[in-house]
């Protein structure tokens, strides 16, 4: 591992002042993209993901539809100006293609696709700013956009990342932590069903560190889940206000 420009953790405090088990500020706005059937903007610190959902709608070409369930398509993409130094080429990279796949597989367990025979549901995610944990923020945004679109779901899928920084297990990696840490563990979690639906790992971990990081991720996901519920409630409260008066 390379040496970071600043110590990532000192006396139990991280470079940005957080405790190891602390999320960055989480902001959530549901329904921000007016043309979409559902949408959400989620930020974890300086990381910003915008998700939009179109569908259920007809599948083209038809021979790609399935007779007994819907097909969910997921695209994760980074805006050219979302990265810290150089401009990111907008053509999809191998990394973006892999992440699109794991996010789809992280969302599928939560969506009742069996209700949507022959249809397709499209989930589009754009990273506007990247400062670590982009796939975690994407997952939360995508879940909320699906819920906002009225798609039947078993639970929300909340994304959070854990990491191994100077031997300490920490929650919600920032960009600089992601770059210099000894290990990265992005997680997708359904808080009510208590199921992991995204699980990736990178780096060098002992069994104990890995399991501890999973536990930390669960706590992080439960925290974000509360914020997500408030945001959903907030949107529907404000719609109710519009409709029925306050």
């Amino acid at each position, binding site marked *: 591992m390379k040496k970071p420009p600043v110590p990532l953790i000192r006396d139990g405090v991280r470079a940005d002042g957080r405790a190891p088990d602390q999320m960055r500020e989480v902001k959530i706005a549901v329904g921000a993209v007016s043309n979409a059937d559902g*949408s959400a903007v989620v930020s974890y610190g300086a990381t910003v993901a915008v998700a939009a959902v179109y569908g259920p709608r007809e599948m083209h070409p038809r021979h790609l539809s399935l007779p007994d369930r819907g097909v969910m398509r997921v695209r994760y993409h980074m805006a050219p100006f979302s990265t810290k130094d150089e401009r990111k080429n907008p053509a999809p990279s191998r990394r973006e293609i892999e992440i699109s796949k794991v996010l789809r597989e992280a969302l599928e367990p939560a969506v009742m696709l069996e209700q949507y025979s022959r249809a397709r549901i*499209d989930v589009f995610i*754009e990273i506007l700013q990247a400062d670590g944990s982009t796939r975690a923020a994407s997952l939360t945004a995508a879940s909320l956009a699906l819920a906002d679109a009225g798609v039947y779901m078993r639970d929300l899928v909340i994304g959070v990342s854990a990491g191994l920084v100077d031997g300490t297990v920490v929650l919600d990696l920032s960009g600089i932590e992601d770059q210099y840490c000894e290990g990265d563990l992005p997680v997708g979690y359904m808080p009510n069903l208590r199921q992991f639906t995204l699980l990736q790992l990178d780096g060098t971990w002992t069994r104990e560190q890995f399991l501890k990081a999973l536990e930390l991720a669960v706590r992080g996901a439960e925290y974000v889940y509360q914020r997500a519920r408030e945001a959903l409630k907030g949107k529907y409260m404000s719609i109710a206000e519009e409709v029925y008066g306050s």
Partner: protein
Amino acid sequence: MASISPYGKRFISYLRREQIRRLVAGKYRVDGRRLDQLRDVEVRVGVISTADGSAEVRLGKTHVVAGVKVGVGQPFPDAPDEGVLVVNAEVLPHASPYTEIGPPDEFAIELARVVDRGIRHCGYIDSKSLFIEQGRVYVVWVDLCVINDDGNLTDAANLAAVAALASAQLPAVAKEEAGVRLDRGRRAKMPVDPGRAPVAVSVCKIGSVLFLDPTFEEELSVDGKVTFTFSQDRIVAVQKTAGHFTYQEIESALDLALKGRDALLSALRSALESPGAAGQ
């Protein structure tokens, strides 16, 4: 097959189209605006912390983000002492039910090129200040991300690009053994001349009635659409994108466009004067 036009197709129901057209014939619009009235326009700069300059524009429900990134590259052979400007547009699949996944289609390419021509020819950027050394210049990327398309992308995207450039900073150049590197710790102002800011204004026609700032539905109902870009009192770009116009209609459209120009310019100026207030 992006190399043959048209790419994809866009719909509006016949009834809705006729309703829009009937209203405009009587000088009304579906959202109650006057013919020469723009939707609410909001310009905010400095919205993307990872970019060297950025802005977002909301024109009614149309939403565009522009990000500037600065790099180092080679000049064009016919302008060895000038920096390079590249404008690129991506209409995100978020933006409407019609957008396909893939490389920029003809709509996105035209959008980028019209914005590019408006900026390139009016002296808004001082290209010579982007020279670094023999064979090496600054490359200024302007990336336009359309997040929601409710019509009139050109006017919104042009405004976002112009505001993002005005807010942008030029990283210093660090010369090292291995070559030239940008040092984002030290920055200078991007060499733009706000007085020459180009402003694009689109004019639509239904029957012989002209109007400004079309919504997405209106765009699918028109008999003609033409965009004028102004810098100071000059015309620096024109692009007819739909239908046909008589000479007299073009003249009237030009006059109408100047009204729109004034409204957009004042939105731009407020944003540039109070960037702090507008920052996220």
